[in-house]
């Protein structure tokens, strides 16, 4: 079985995240984003690669959207309303509530900017959202009979989730964007440890390691405060949701503490609705915000006012949040054109700006002039502050997550190629996990696990799960009445007493359990064997379910009679002169010899338990007795060198103890008590 990963976007770049994964025949699209840096066909993923006939409904099992950022959801209305995808779309409650705001905000910017033919309309957005199924965190959702998905908290923005998907035995996680450290209003990403074949993770900050957030936040506040204190205007270009609320909580709180009266504005359409959503979705925010919502909802901003277009050129300091972020057009660009030429003013930029945006141009070097188009040039004199805190995890966070989940394969997306290569090599060398960083429109195939499903008998499970300890002591003879035993199993048949093999003999030094205390008091000579694991048999019959049974149940299942295969051997052995013992009767002589052999074997086989049952000795399945028959059928040698000192011993064993048996026989061959 393989998992195929077709990267339609965010392959070795940031923008238009879209990965189509095929697991055991189920095809899932993770994210359906757009690229902010392009205006032509490159802005959307090349959906035709999923299905040449563009019949997306039959080839896709579902679409999963991780969060409301445009690089993750921007192409969704286009995909559903223009390309005709009709199947299920999953996203979290907050994403579903906030996505239409983001999409509409962006759509307006696009239409305003160049009056270009719209890619999708407001109706498209609304129609598209009707197809969405909201999910809660940790909820296991059965998309169809075979496909299961589950969302985990990802931090990053309100409602951002990592998604787990499982088909049969193959399982994977797609992270979307995530943050491993909590911020002003969101918690850190959280996920369970699971068996994964594949982890697809973002890698925006593949090589960056960030220190404390508080220092960076202070820098930001100081920059803003300095600017307004000297009468300047602060422009904070953001998208309607996410960063805007985080910075606003930060500023509102700071204004409160410093008792500042300078106005903070939100550009039109940004605040009211968005903040109301944030208030209702409070359970998706950080622990601290959640705990205090009854007394004071953190999204009730006290110092924030609405901004009017006419105020752009009004005198005096202020702070303005304006959409869209990265100054890719719209109102933030309009304000930027007016404020950029003044040295007093400040523009804050996020840690990452997509190539092709003004934000990106401002970040690369310190340009004093920016060409908007061939007719317009903007004079840039203002200060630029780049936010050093980001809602994305840093490289340590990525490594921690990969290490925690320990998947069989890792695929990196949503990052910059050179940095991704570095991270890829780190994951490979430090964690020993194969890692890939496919470019757009490349497919990575990895093999997935396939385990065997079987029906198991309760007896087998019990034999496995209940510890089957056997407590064996060195000298059992005083406890077991040998006469009783021999009277029950008379004659040679006692030689063939079957015992289960127990290859797992462990010496336990620690106390096992209170229940076992009494037996442990017998001292360190005690041996504990635990034969839990070796008695299962897998039975596969054509057209029937595979079964696992206990060894003892097999013959019943097959309706067969056991046929035991044993080994037997009758060999001479030399004891001391028979003269010393011939006065004794036959039985006491035998028992004397047996106990001599018993102590001999005990000392030679220190890790085995040699038991003397009076009539015979036993080590595992190996039994030995003194053979007084005239002609034993198992006697292969009749030659005896020293008739007077010799007797015969008859032994028998099962194939499991083959090695042991030959070891004992060779010990006995060398044995000559007459020489001692």
């Amino acid at each position, binding site marked *: 079985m393989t998992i195929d990963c077709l990267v339609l976007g965010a392959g070795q770049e940031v923008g238009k995240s879209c990965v189509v994964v095929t697991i055991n025949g189920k095809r899932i699209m993770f994210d359906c984003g757009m690229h902010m840096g392009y205006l032509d066909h490159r802005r959307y993923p090349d959906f035709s690669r999923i299905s040449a006939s563009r019949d997306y409904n039959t080839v896709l099992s579902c679409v999963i959207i991780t969060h409301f950022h445009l690089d993750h959801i921007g192409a969704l209305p286009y995909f559903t309303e223009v390309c005709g995808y009709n199947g299920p779309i999953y996203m979290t409650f907050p994403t579903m509530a906030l996505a239409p705001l983001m999409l509409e905000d962006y759509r307006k910017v696009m239409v305003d900017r160049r009056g270009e033919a719209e890619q999708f309309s407001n109706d498209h957005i609304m129609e598209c959202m009707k197809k969405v199924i909201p999910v809660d965190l*940790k909820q296991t959702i059965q998309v169809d009979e075979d496909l299961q998905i589950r969302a985990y908290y990802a931090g990053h923005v309100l409602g951002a989730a990592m998604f787990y998907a499982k088909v049969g035995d193959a399982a994977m996680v797609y992270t979307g964007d995530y943050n491993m450290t909590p911020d002003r209003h969101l918690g850190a990403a959280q996920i369970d440890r699971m068996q994964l074949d594949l982890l697809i993770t973002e890698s925006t900050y593949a090589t960056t390691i960030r220190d404390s957030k508080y220092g960076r936040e202070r820098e930001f506040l100081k920059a803003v405060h300095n600017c307004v204190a000297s009468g300047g205007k602060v422009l904070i270009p953001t998208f309607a949701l996410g960063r805007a609320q985080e910075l606003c909580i930060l500023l509102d709180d700071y204004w409160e503490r410093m008792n500042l009266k300078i106005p903070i504005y939100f550009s039109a359409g940004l605040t009211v609705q968005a903040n109301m959503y944030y208030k*209702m*979705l409070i359970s998706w925010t950080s622990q601290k915000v959640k705990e205090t919502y009854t007394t004071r909802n953190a999204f009730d901003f006290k110092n924030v006012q609405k901004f009017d277009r006419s105020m752009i050129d009004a005198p005096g300091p202020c702070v303005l949040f304006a959409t869209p972020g990265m100054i890719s057009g719209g109102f933030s660009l309009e304000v930027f054109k007016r404020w950029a030429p003044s040295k007093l003013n400040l523009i804050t930029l996020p840690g990452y700006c997509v190539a092709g945006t003004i934000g990106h141009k401002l970040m690369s070097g310190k340009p004093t002039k920016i060409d908007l188009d061939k007719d317009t040039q903007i004079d840039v004199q203002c200060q630029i502050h780049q936010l050093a805190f980001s809602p994305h995890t840093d490289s340590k966070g990525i490594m921690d997550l990969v290490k925690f989940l320990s998947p069989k394969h890792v695929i990196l997306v949503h990052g910059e190629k050179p940095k991704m290569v570095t991270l890829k090599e780190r994951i490979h060398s430090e964690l020993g996990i194969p890692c890939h960083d496919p470019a757009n429109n490349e497919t990575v195939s990895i093999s997935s696990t396939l385990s065997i499903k079987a029906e198991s008998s309760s007896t087998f499970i019990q034999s496995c799960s209940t510890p089957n300890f056997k407590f064996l002591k060195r000298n059992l003879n005083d406890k077991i009445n040998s006469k009783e035993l021999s009277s029950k199993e008379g004659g040679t048949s006692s030689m063939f007493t079957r015992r289960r093999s127990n290859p797992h003999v462990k010496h336990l030094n620690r106390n096992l359990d209170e229940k076992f205390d009494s037996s442990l008091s017998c001292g360190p000579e005690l041996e504990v064997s635990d034969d839990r*694991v*070796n008695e299962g*048999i897998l039975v596969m*019959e*054509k057209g029937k379910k595979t079964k696992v049974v206990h060894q003892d149940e097999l013959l019943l299942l097959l309706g067969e009679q056991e046929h035991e295969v044993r080994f037997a051997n009758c060999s001479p052995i030399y004891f001391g002169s028979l003269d010393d013992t011939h006065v004794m009767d036959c039985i006491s002589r035998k028992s004397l010899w047996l106990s001599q052999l018993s102590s001999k074997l005990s000392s030679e086989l220190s890790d085995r338990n040699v038991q003397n049952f009076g009539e015979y000795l036993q080590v595992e399945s190996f039994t030995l007795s003194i053979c007084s028959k005239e002609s034993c059928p198992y006697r292969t040698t009749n030659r005896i060198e020293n008739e007077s000192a010799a007797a015969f011993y008859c032994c*028998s064993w099962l194939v499991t103890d083959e090695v042991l048996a030959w070891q004992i026989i060779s010990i006995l061959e060398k044995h000559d008590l007459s020489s001692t």
Partner: protein
Amino acid sequence: MEFTCLSRGGFFYFPPCHMLEVCGFRIQFDCPMDFSALPIFSPVPLDFDVISDEELSTHPGNGSFNLENVSEEKIEKPLDVGSLIKAEPWYKIIKNLRLWNLSFTDIVLISSPMGMLGLPFLTRQKGFSAKIYATEATARLGKMMMDDLVAMHMEFKQFYGSEDDATPQWMRQEELELLHHALKEVAFGQDEADLGGWMPMYSAADVKDCMKKVETVRYGEEACYNGALVIKALSCGLEIGACNWTINGPKRDIAYISSSIFSSSNAMNFDYLALQGETIIYSDFSSVESMNDILNDTSGSLTENLMALSRNEETLANLLSDPAESVGESEKLSFICSCAIQSVESGGSVLIPINRLGVTLQLLEQISASLDCSNLKVPIYLISSVAEELLALANVIPEWLCKQRQEKLFSGEPMFAFVDLLKEKKLHAFPAVHSPKLLINWQEPCVVFCPHWSLRLGPVVHLLRRWCGDPSSLLVLEKGLDAELALLPFRPMSMKVLQCAFLSGIKLDKVRPLLKVLQPKVVMLPENLSRLINTNTESCTVFSYSEGETLRVPNLKDSLELEIAPDLAMSFCWRKLQQGNIDIARLKGELSLNCGKFKLFPENAHVATDQRPLIHWGQPDLKKLLNVLSKMGIEGSLQQSDAESSNVGVIRIHDPTEAVIEIQDSRTIISVADKTLCARIFDAVDSILNGV
């Protein structure tokens, strides 16, 4: 598996309580508080309104029991307010729970906020160590209800002064004997006075402690207990956060159905399709409870209708989601609204002591809409120590609400009308009747929502005293409450009383269609219910249970699912059996139980094991064996056996060395002095037998 119904409960505020033993674990379902005996206590006399104090003092027997009256006379005086116990009340927990050693309980599953109210009694006991599961919403609502109970009870404590731990005066045998027989029956049933199940109220600290032991889950979240059981909460529609449970273990899949509502106007709907499992514990007693009221009215025709039910899934599903139910409910609410408007128009106030969040929220919306329609400027008050908290919570839990409410979130509107009502100052939330803000704001006539439905605790007591004599005021009560006894302290009542039953579970006519859709193999039904519905035609086995009896349900699975890790499966040494279609292999690995599934992994210390078969069966063919041996270069001959032991065949090997193979009916013995030859002969014997 063993199932014991500890209590069938009664109506909405008193859900059933059960004990289940499955896969070696003991699970308790719900831990409600039994308020049925609370009305034997007198409500707190308070100086909030002067009238009530005067009224109280005019009653004879106030203060303590009137001993003269009881003397030797057989005729008891009629039940009146003086008969009520004037002391700090105690509360009842499930009586049968005392028969169980609580330290052996592994899991407690809480299905609704009401099912949680008795929990602090349990968790404050020594030795209690069970894991408690509840949905996040239930836990939060339940905590608020418990906090509110503690706060309301505090009034008693303040009035009577805190007693020491000793048994209170009223619990003494001689005092109990003086108790009016009607009260005795309410308190103890037919039994002798048995006070074992009575407890003093828990404290706020007990509630806090209890909450620490609760593990919260979301709908559909899989909680794995001890690796063995996967426990999942699924919406049941009864109340916000209320749930049914599925428990999947290696040996059994169980679905527990508590009182459920197919289409709710607040809570997320009854997610019944997720309950398809082999064993169903049906614990919705609501239809039995309401049957007792309706008596034999329509059950005959009902059964006939059901007989005609087609097996068509679609029709079944339609029947289950039949909107008639919710239409009926909204008609009920409209009726209450119209009664409320009438009262208000005639200058009276409306008092609604209903502690169901769902009903409260809906009535709030409808009454305010009706007031608007009639152009009435009448304030609505929500009075409870947790009123503000409750409203704040309701507005931030969209994940727990029905589709219609969620739609509002997605279209950017507030999910509940109260958000705007609060802003427009049409609705006011206050912590208590004596809070200063309330006194400033107070206006009559008004509409008040407040606890407690028993009419013994909380703001309702004071407001009832105030309005009970006003014929234009209205009291809305819920069915299931003994109104006669509940209203005793407020007599004479001139106030209008409207008592109505809200939908509290699955209706009788939907039980069978539901079971048809779920297709379980085993169903456990309350005895009374299984008598009411004809279960003979079901394809499943039906067990009926009744209170206090333990039901044993035999295991269905004789085998268990086992998953074998791929790397382990690779190491198998398969052997084809002679009878053809069967392949077998010896299995060796470490067994793990995770999330209710058994999985076999390769052992860590992989011992290089001899793959020689350890067990054999079949009959060896001597000729074949000789053949095989000679192909291996081992020459021997069949030794003619003695006449007496004809079923023993002996092969004597003479090349390369001497050896003997003795073949009996069920045993073969190989006797060779040479180690290598011995092994080769074994292989030869093995090849003509079946083995593994």
